């Protein structure tokens, strides 16, 4: 596995560079190559499942007198989880795009940007160096700005502009944060920096850097007071890109890095734990209340992303092993059901050219696959057993009770009920009820789109199995262990 680690970045990157050239040669080559590349990435990430912790020194630069001088790539339990969701969802979305993106011009450029976005996310996930995080974050962010504006209609451009301004402000904060971090510790390596922070002891400077990082990544991850860009940006993008942005992008570039920095570099303190829980609970409740009044299908889903990210942040913020397990598992689950929901909305949009819930109705009769898969996804997100969302929400609530935060548990239950209500609304208005005569001639979405939706629905049903004893130890427990013993990360990476 060790030799294969750089391929997570190298494969999509190399293809992305040549994609414009391939696009001139043949119209189908970009479709084929894009899917082959993402499939290869998905297979690679499955191969990583049982690997031990790997530290890959890029360029072969060994530490000099204990100080890290090069860039490290690190593969540990948390990385594997993130790689799995990014690359599997990425592959399924890419499969979906083959048909969906026919409505847009210049497909080769779409695949170029898509692969660059994948590169960026994979790069952020596998690196162990803070500046490298920033660079790859910018790659995926810039690709996503362009992808949001890909349709070049006025609303999309406007959303893309707003999104890019917010994203650039976040990047600015992250860059300042990491320069303060470099100033404080003299290093950019996360493990070495964490060690330096322990040696120095608690200081105001560390708190300041931590606050700047929190601001930057909360803005990237759309946690509540910093959420304003998300409900515009995510719905305006083409459906596969909405699925990527809501499904994996905000997690890989926001929540994941935030966890890495807060747990593994700075070490979770009581203050950060409280801040995370408060922000999480705020997003959870406010997101769902904002969502329930929406009539635009994609906008409603986008507000739910804020709310569901609130669950994740709250679960992780509780800080107990059970809470972290719940948070991470919910993160995995959310990536499947939310991307499925956006793909469903894309299928509806593809067939009916409409996103307004009030104008739909009875689509189940005409689009059985879309209807059925969206029912699965809705039940998952609302937390109905036995779908995956139920298990992760249950664990989060149990963890909150166990840690004595009864009010948080209550809020989580309330949020869950509201989520159920708003998805009953979606199902009722869009898929059940009387078929309006306007939609008599509507056809089901093309086969490839259905295939990818069905596969995601299977994941939604089956992912509860990850909690079974025997399976849980191999994947989730390893990821949880990385965060619970946050400070151990330095020793693992530096090899002591």
């Amino acid at each position, binding site marked *: 596995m060790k030799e294969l680690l750089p391929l997570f970045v190298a494969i999509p990157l190399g293809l992305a560079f040549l994609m414009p050239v391939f696009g001139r040669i043949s119209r189908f080559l970009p479709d084929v190559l894009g899917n082959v590349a993402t499939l290869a990435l998905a297979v690679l990430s499955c191969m990583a499942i049982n690997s031990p912790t790997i530290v890959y020194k890029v360029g072969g630069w060994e530490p000099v007198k204990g100080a890290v001088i090069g860039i490290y790539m690190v593969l540990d339990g948390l990385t594997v989880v993130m790689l799995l969701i990014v690359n599997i969802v990425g592959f399924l979305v890419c499969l979906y795009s083959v048909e969906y993106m026919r409505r847009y011009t210049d497909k080769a450029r779409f695949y170029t940007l898509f692969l660059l976005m994948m590169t960026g996310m994979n790069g952020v996930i596998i690196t162990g160096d803070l*500046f490298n995080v920033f660079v790859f974050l910018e790659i995926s962010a810039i690709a996503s700005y*362009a992808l949001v*504006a890909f349709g070049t209609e006025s609303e999309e451009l406007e959303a893309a502009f707003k999104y890019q301004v917010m994203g650039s402000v976040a990047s600015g904060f992250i860059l300042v944060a990491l320069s303060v971090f470099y*100033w404080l510790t*003299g290093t950019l390596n996360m493990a070495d920096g964490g060690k330096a922070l322990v040696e120095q002891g608690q*200081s*105001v400077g560390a708190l*300041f850097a931590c606050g700047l990082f929190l601001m930057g990544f909360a803005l990237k991850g759309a946690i509540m007071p910093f959420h304003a860009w998300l409900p515009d940006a995510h719905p305006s993008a083409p459906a596969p890109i909405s699925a990527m942005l809501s499904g994996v992008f905000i997690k890989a570039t926001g929540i994941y890095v935030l966890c890495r920095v807060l747990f593994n570099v700075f070490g979770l303190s009581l203050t950060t734990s409280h801040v995370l829980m408060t922000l999480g609970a705020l997003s959870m409740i406010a997101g769902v209340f904002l969502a329930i009044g929406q009539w635009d299908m994609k906008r409603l889903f986008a507000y739910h992303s804020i709310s569901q990210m609130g669950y994740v942040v709250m679960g992780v913020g509780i800080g107990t092993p059970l809470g972290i397990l719940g948070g991470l598992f919910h993160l995995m689950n959310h990536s499947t059901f939310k991307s499925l929901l956006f793909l469903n909305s894309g299928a509806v949009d593809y067939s009916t050219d409409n996103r307004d819930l009030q104008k739909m109705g009875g689509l189940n009769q005409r689009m059985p696959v879309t209807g059925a898969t969206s029912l699965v996804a809705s039940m998952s997100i609302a937390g109905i057993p036995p779908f995956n969302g139920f298990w992760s929400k249950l664990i989060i609530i149990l963890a909150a009770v166990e840690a004595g935060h009864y009010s948080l548990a209550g809020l989580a239950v309330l949020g869950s009920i509201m989520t159920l209500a708003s998805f009953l609304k979606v199902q009722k208005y869009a898929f059940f009820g009387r078929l309006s005569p306007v939609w008599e001639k509507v056809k089901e979405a093309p086969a490839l789109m259905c295939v990818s939706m069905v596969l995601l629905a299977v994941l939604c049903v089956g992912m509860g199995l990850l909690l079974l004893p025997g399976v849980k130890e191999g994947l989730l427990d390893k990821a949880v262990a990385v965060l619970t013993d946050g400070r151990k990360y330095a020793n693992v990476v530096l090899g002591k």
Partner: protein
Amino acid sequence: MLIILCGLIILMILGAFVALGAASLLSSAVLLGIIGFSLSAVFLILQAPDLAIVQIVVETLSLVIFIAVILKTTSEDATVRARARLPFLIIAGAFVVLFMLAVGWALGSMPPFGWPSLRMAGPYLTPEALPRTTGAANFVTAVVLDFRGYDTLGEATVLFTAVMGVLAVLRRIGRKH
């Protein structure tokens, strides 16, 4: 040296105020250029000739892009007369004051200006070690392309991505109907 440095930064700050307040976008862009060129002078004072060169060429280029965009569209900023609302100004002011207090407070626990801790960069600078490892006389190039070459691949990719993005956004027709 410190006085010239502070003077240049204060010039940049004043330039920033005027640039944001100007009624003509063209003069805003030119003022931004002045800020950028002062920055490259600051880089020279801080003993960073590499940065000064790149900053000058990049600043010229971004000035050209700004001016090209403004000349193609309009140079009038109609919004400049609109006043920000008072509650917003109070919040913004409070944020600025709090942030600067936090900076001032945090500065106390940092290594002093001019004495960085060089935990990661120390090994680069031992004169005997570096030429043997990378063979480059320019340490910045050695860091950019060899020790942190992976970052630079990312940087080249960012530029590539942005060009792809520009080409995608400025397509004549975006959707088929």
